[in-house]
């Protein structure tokens, strides 16, 4: 690789790269960022490589591995150039279709296009997808166009021309002036004007000076920096070099958190490639300016994102913040003047230098210019990374880009700015967002996390979550943060567990004030935000927890009661199986109940209950409805069988007259009674009572399953025979069996009182092996293997059938 020695060399290289490219050649861009990989992008990539090889197309089609386009939930994502067709949710098994249809025949595979869940329309191009339609993507735009591991891709798009312009056409002061004029504000959280920070460092005494990229991104719920560093590392690097030139630094650091291995890898490659081309290192582009960059891997601490803590970490010490009596722009890393900016801020620098401050200022609000990347997550339909102009409303973000709230729930609010931010309630979501407006609402830009919360989110629980998080991440150096958060957590723990006191809220408020006044660094000072905003906007939820011992969102475990709605329970037994504590009573086809004394409120039964039944329910602040007594738990719902009947299935007996007619046709019928006959309560009597009545009226003999014989005898009726169920089946199959009275084989067997599976098994056996025997099912669940069967019946209808049949015999006789 030849070192570039002048801007002309760079331009020539760019032309060379472009000349080698055939604009009509098919390129498949596969997103291999962490998000898509979690959904199987690697497997898709391998399938694509294999398929192209199999068809001998590997030289005709280029595969480009690219970074994140933001719509992660719809991943893995492919783009096919030059047509620019976007395919979402691609699986390895879709690959042959993509190759045969789109790559070879130039046709679109409709089933892989994005379908708008609202309109049901498919979108071929990105601008037709609502998620993208309302975005302005200055930084993220190139993520789908460049392979982050190839500097040539970045150069082909005009990369490093801003650096050349700065080095050769501008003095460091002019670069600084341009950045100042653009009003670029730090994207990392506070929104400090970048130009002013640079100026302070430039004018500060002390050599050497340092520039640092902060990619600690410890805020839970945010991944903008990861996406940029994984997807387009050179844009950050170029910004950093320009910044170093402007402030007069010769050494830079890129601080990346440990959880982002792919970002580290891509940045490392970017540095090596830039050095190889002479864009970094000694004598950059032959300009005489020299600059070196090192990557520093974080080790998993939220507080390290704080500027002074981050610098301590680079120095090899524990990442604890230090008091900022002197700003780190003057005394930072190793006590030297240091500029520390966020990934996004650095990535804007080349764009501003290249296009000018005026261009940048056309976007955004009065005091916040340009675009901002937000991570949209939580309970919205479309989640992912979005880049929007400052001044857009949260309402537009949630409903236009986010496509509204998931599962038809109601919007409650949005948490903006990570643990240091605050929760903005629904009524304020139409405020245009920029750095200052968010602060007015009690939140902050932070690193741009927007987590949408719906009715099922408990705000007290969310506040507890953030306080718990910050408590764990507090470095412990200053007392307000270390002790204050601990106390706040204790109070919140009590409130969500139903032990809240009326003095709690006042105490929380006091702690919050002490934190913001007295904590050493921004972590502690802003730690009160989630507390204060929830107290300000959702006070009634705190009150419900404290005074009514009720969690209105049904989230806080200790305040919940689980129960099963007997009207909805289908007796499927799923909840029973899911329970680890034996707290559920029930058998298949009986209504299940939860024994409250044993329930640990783990919620497993709630998850296990199929959503179409929705029988397991939660309630809070009130006891569960009383459970049904044991003998009322038989299901009244018709039974649905999943059995496949084959070509012959039972004919449904439409009414009791038909039933009687069928029975009357038989010469030697027998009634077979199963084990459940004595357990089923119908109106005021037992099923067995109806059976006895029926048998007396019709004179049809009874064979009972042994376990119920006693019940008959108790009622003064002696069955002709009692045997085990399977033995009864064997006798009926046996052609030489002379029946219960020895008078010859029976030609009809009526079945009643059997558990469903026993009945099914008997009837299935008889259907196949007992020719000449007509089987009739008189149980209230349709038996497909009988010759004749009652339909699925509720208990009341069943009683009507049974008494109806008996009545037919009374009137007509036999």
């Amino acid at each position, binding site marked *: 690789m030849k070192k570039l020695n002048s801007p002309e060399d760079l331009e020539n290289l760019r032309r060379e790269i472009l000349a080698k490219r055939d604009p009509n050649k098919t390129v498949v861009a596969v997103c291999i960022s962490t998000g898509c*990989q979690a959904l199987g992008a690697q497997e898709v990539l391998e399938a694509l490589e294999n398929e192209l090889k199999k068809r001998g197309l590997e030289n005709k089609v280029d595969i480009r591995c690219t970074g994140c386009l933001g719509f992660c939930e719809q991943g893995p994502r492919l783009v096919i150039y030059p047509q620019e067709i976007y395919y979402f949710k691609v699986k390895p098994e879709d690959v042959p279709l993509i190759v045969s249809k789109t790559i070879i025949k130039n046709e679109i595979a409709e089933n892989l296009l994005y379908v708008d869940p609202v309109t049901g329309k498919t979108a071929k191009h990105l601008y037709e997808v609502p998620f993208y339609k309302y975005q302005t993507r200055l930084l993220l735009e190139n993520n789908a166009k460049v392979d982050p591991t190839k500097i040539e891709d970045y150069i082909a798009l005009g990369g490093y021309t801003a650096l050349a312009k700065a080095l050769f056409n501008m003095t460091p002061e002019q670069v600084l002036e341009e950045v100042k004029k653009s009003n670029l504000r730090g994207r990392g959280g506070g929104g400090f004007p970048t130009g002013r920070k640079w100026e302070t460092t430039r004018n500060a005494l002390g050599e050497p000076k340092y520039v640092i990229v902060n990619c600690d991104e410890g*805020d839970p*719920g945010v991944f903008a920096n990861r996406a940029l560093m994984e997807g387009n590392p050179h844009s950050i690097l170029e910004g950093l070099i320009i910044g170093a030139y402007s402030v007069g630094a010769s050494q830079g650091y890129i601080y990346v958190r440990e959880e982002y291995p792919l970002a580290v890898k891509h940045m490392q490659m970017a540095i090596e490639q830039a050095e190889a081309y002479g864009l970094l290192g000694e004598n950059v582009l032959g300009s005489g300016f020299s600059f070196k960059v090192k990557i520093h891997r974080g080790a998993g601490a939220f507080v390290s994102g704080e500027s002074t803590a981050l610098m301590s970490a680079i120095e*090899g010490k524990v*990442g604890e913040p230090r008091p900022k009596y002197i700003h780190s722009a003057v005394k930072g890393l190793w006590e030297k003047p240091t500029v520390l900016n966020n990934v996004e801020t650095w990535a804007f620098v080349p764009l501003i230098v290249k296009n000018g401050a005026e261009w940048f200022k056309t976007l955004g609000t009065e005091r916040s210019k340009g675009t901002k990347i937000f991570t949209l*997550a939580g309970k919205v339909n479309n989640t992912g990374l979005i880049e929007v102009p400052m001044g857009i409303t949260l309402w537009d973000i949630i409903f236009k880009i986010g496509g509204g709230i998931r599962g038809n729930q109601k919007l409650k609010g949005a948490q903006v700015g990570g643990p240091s931010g605050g929760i903005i309630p629904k009524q304020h979501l139409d405020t245009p967002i920029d750095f200052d407006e968010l602060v007015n609402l009690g939140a902050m830009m932070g690193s741009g996390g927007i987590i949408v919360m719906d009715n099922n989110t408990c705000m007290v629980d969310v506040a507890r979550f953030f306080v718990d998080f910050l408590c764990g991440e507090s470095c412990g150096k200053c007392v307000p943060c270390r002790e204050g958060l601990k106390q706040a957590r204790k109070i919140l723990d009590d409130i969500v567990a139903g032990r809240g006191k009326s003095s709690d809220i006042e105490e929380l408020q006091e702690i919050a004030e002490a934190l913001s006044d007295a904590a050493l660094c921004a972590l502690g000072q802003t730690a009160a935000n989630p507390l204060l905003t929830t107290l300000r906007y959702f006070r009634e939820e705190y009150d419900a927890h404290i005074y009514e011992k009720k969690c209105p969102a049904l989230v806080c475990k200790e305040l919940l009661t689980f129960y099963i709605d007997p009207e909805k329970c289908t007796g499927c037994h799923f909840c029973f199986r899911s329970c680890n504590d034996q707290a559920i009573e029930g058998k298949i086809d009986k209504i299940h109940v939860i024994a409250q004394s044993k329930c640990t409120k783990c919620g497993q039964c709630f998850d296990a209950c199929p959503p179409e039944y929705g029988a397991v329910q939660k309630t809070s602040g009130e006891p569960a409805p009383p459970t049904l007594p044991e003998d009322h738990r038989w299901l009244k719902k018709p039974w649905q069988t999943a059995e496949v009947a084959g070509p012959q299935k039972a004919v449904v007996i439409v009414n009791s007259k038909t039933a009687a007619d069928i029975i009357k046709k038989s010469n030697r019928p027998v009634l077979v009674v199963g084990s459940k006959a004595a357990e089923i309560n119908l109106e005021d009597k037992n099923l067995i009572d109806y059976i006895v009545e029926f048998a007396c009226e019709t004179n049809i003999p009874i064979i009972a399953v042994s376990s119920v014989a006693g019940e008959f005898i108790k009622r003064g009726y002696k069955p002709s025979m009692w045997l085990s169920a399977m033995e009864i089946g064997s006798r009926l199959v046996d052609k030489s069996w002379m029946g219960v009275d020895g008078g010859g084989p029976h030609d009809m067997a009526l079945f009643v009182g059997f558990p469903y599976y026993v009945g099914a098994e008997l009837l299935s056996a008889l259907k196949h092996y007992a020719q000449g025997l007509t089987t009739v099912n008189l149980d209230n669940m349709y038996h497909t293997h009988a010759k004749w069967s009652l339909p699925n019946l509720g208990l009341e209808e069943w009683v009507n059938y049974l008494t109806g049949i008996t009545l037919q015999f009374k009137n007509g006789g036999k």
Partner: protein
Amino acid sequence: MLSEKTYKIDEIIDKYVGKEGALIQLLLEIQRSLNWIPREAVQKISEKLKIPVSEIHRVASFYTAMSLVPRGKHLVRVCTGTACYVRGASRILDAAEQTLGIKAGETSEDLKFTLEKVNCLGCCALGPVAEINGKYHGLLTRKKLEDILNRKRDESP
């Protein structure tokens, strides 16, 4: 085995001797290579880099990425960041704890699994998320995670 470990530790430490502010990177590299930071390594670093053992302990116990006790063969990290949390990450963590029979932050007795909860894995759009041995699993349900963990358990002796 022991000598191989010792050799590895020496090799890593030697790379950092004389470098300014190298302690964190050095500890991370030992962590990556051995999956924990043994006492032997702490002592060696102290001797070779002239850093007090107490200072090394302070750093190693501050950062979540470093472990002063052995970790299991499979590292299971369940994300409990905000986005995952509102989508039910605590239930996913419950499932992991029940399936593995250990609490977050613990290692199973057979040294097969270590379970951790992490603040954010940066896959917020895919919540709830867990990372198992460096591979990310998105849009998790209890069932999905239980299946993955059971498979891992059965995989090797």
